[in-house]
């Protein structure tokens, strides 16, 4: 099969029978469940745009394994150009859906496991990388969307995984068999999990020798026996059952649609296992994945910012205040913040590098700066969106009241803005701004791809503070400045002695 369209993707999910629970009931068909449809539509966009001549340049790629044209969401980056196109794709997708389109997590999982398995094999002579390449060929051939399952529920954070009272708070190997492994445990808030074809698991943290059984990475079909999903609630989620207006973004939803995944004695054949005990590579896998994933946020969230900035400007225009100076100033502030994040993510892509595996990785320091900025700036530009949109975004009447035969017309007339603008259009735009700025999208920007503390640890670790101290010491005159000495043509001490003498003799000429 070649690249799927959006429709193909939705239909392909029908072939899977994952065990999914939501609001206390077992969901028989993921595709037909109204609560899930916006998330599915957002993911479908990743498929659809790869066929669009207007977007295929960034949405499609050429497989380095087969030479075939593939969806970029299944492509392992082979150069700086790929890294840059990836974040361009993220911004485009954010603009097209105004929400999380979910598929980047699996993409980053593919790229991180690709690079790490190569390094494991170099050290231990294992065959993980070849196995993984075989798996990647299948992903590309079928155009699968794998979910990337990293975060464990983690229990008592002061204890190592192997010391937990409840061992299943971390996914781990329960048994090693001749033909595979039995795993048990849970992964939490996994984006796009219920509408993915596959699950790729990765360890959530650095493991030590005693945590060997937790140093684990594998891929399985989403409906593997023993895998259970419990879909998470989001702010105002059931509004999507009330009609087409109140949800704000009924087509694509609000953030990605997260689920917890419970693994209950799940069998994984060896050919799908990519790490099983190599605890000394867990840091590399976690940091590689986190680096890729954190860089994305300067693309996707900026795409969302483009939409919310546009929505805010439209609301101001339709209320006759589009040219008022404080509105222009606020919109400009939003744009400057969004483009700052965009600059960061472009920089971390252009400053990427070739890993030993041949795959390219982003600049990890800059990727963490991207994400740290996002944890702050998304809140700030959404705060300004709320400011411009006004209190209406939290007091709007419901679609049902607007449709009421007795009060509906009167209610609608209260929302007139500039002449010629339909009040229902104004209400619809306000609902979109409410959806984007009030709901679950904000904490997602905070914690998705890791919380701010995690980014600060990485930034601190990679900042090269010792070298910065050396720079300061050289300028302050605490250590030799050879460049300065070449400029003045003598040693620094001799130069300053001369300067002092000249000052005493009131001479200006130094050289």
């Amino acid at each position, binding site marked *: 099969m070649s690249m799927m369209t959006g429709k193909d993707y939705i239909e392909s999910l029908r072939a899977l029978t994952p065990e999914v629970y939501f609001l206390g009931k077992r969901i028989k068909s993921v595709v037909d469940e109204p609560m899930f449809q916006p998330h599915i539509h957002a993911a479908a966009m990743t498929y659809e745009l790869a066929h669009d001549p207007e977007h295929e340049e960034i949405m499609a790629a050429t497989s380095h394994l087969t030479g075939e044209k593939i969806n970029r969401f299944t492509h392992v980056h082979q150069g700086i150009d790929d890294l840059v196109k990836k974040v361009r794709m993220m911004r485009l997708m954010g603009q097209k859906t105004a929400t999380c389109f979910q598929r980047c997590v699996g993409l980053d999982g593919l790229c991180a496991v690709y690079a790490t398995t190569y390094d494991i094999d170099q050290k231990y002579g294992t065959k993980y990388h070849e196995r993984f390449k075989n798996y990647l060929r299948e992903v590309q051939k079928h155009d699968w969307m794998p979910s990337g399952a990293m975060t464990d529920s983690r229990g008592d954070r002061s204890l190592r995984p192997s010391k937990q009272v409840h061992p299943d708070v971390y996914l781990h190997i329960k048994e090693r068999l001749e033909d595979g492994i039995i795993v048990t445990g849970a992964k939490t808030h996994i984006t796009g999990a219920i509408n993915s074809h596959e699950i790729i698991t990765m360890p959530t943290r650095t493991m030590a020798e005693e945590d060997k059984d937790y140093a684990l990475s594998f891929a399985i079909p989403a409906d593997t026996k023993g895998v259970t999903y419990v879909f998470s609630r989001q702010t105002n989620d059931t509004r999507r059952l009330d009609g087409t207006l109140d949800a704000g973004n009924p087509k694509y939803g609000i953030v990605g649609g997260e689920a917890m995944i419970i693994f209950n004695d799940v069998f994984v054949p060896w050919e799908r296992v990519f790490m099983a005990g190599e605890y000394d590579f867990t840091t590399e896998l976690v940091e590689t994945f986190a680096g890729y994933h954190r860089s994305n946020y300067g693309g996707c969230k900026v795409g969302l910012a483009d939409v919310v900035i546009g929505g805010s400007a439209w609301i101001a225009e339709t209320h006759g205040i589009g040219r008022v100076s404080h509105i222009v100033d606020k919109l400009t502030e939003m744009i400057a913040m969004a483009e700052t994040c965009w600059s960061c993510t472009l920089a971390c892509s252009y400053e990427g590098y070739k890993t*030993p595996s041949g795959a390219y990785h982003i600049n990890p320091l800059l990727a963490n700066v991207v994400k740290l900025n996002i944890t702050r700036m998304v809140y700030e530009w959404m705060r300004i969106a709320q400011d411009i949109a006004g209190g209406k975004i939290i007091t709007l009447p419901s679609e049902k009241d607007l449709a009421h035969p007795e009060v509906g017309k009167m209610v609608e007339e209260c929302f007139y803005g500039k002449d010629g603008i339909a009040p229902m259009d104004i209400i619809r735009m306000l609902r979109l701004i409410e959806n984007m700025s009030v709901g679950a999208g904000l904490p997602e920007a905070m914690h998705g791809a890791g919380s701010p503390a995690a980014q600060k640890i990485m930034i601190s670790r990679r900042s090269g503070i010792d*070298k910065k101290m050396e720079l300061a010491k050289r300028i302050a005159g605490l250590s030799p400045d050879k460049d300065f000495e070449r400029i003045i043509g003598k040693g620094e001490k001799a130069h300053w002695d001369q300067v002092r003498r000249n000052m005493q003799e009131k001479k200006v000429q130094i050289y």
Partner: protein
Amino acid sequence: MLLVGIRYCGGCNPQIDRSGVITKLKDAIEKRGMAVDFTAERERSVNIVLLVNGCIHACLEEAYLKEGGSTRFISIKGEMVDSDYVREDCIPEIVIKKITETMDSPSH
């Protein structure tokens, strides 16, 4: 005598002390009495080009490949040498190993 041509990247934000690494490399080669000389003159014909990039992005390697340089090269790029991760203090040893391999190769 094997001649190594040294080229430095621009050094905008190096993760390693580039000239410090090269000084240690030259000292170590001298101590071992290896028949290796160094030059920074780009026009001279050399046996190996040593690309000294301050970080893993490796601008210089990119430029060298783009200009179609045909001389065998060793690329220091931050804490990597060619495709291996290497701590800064171990870089001279790894480069010496690679130079030795070149000296021992039949084509040299």
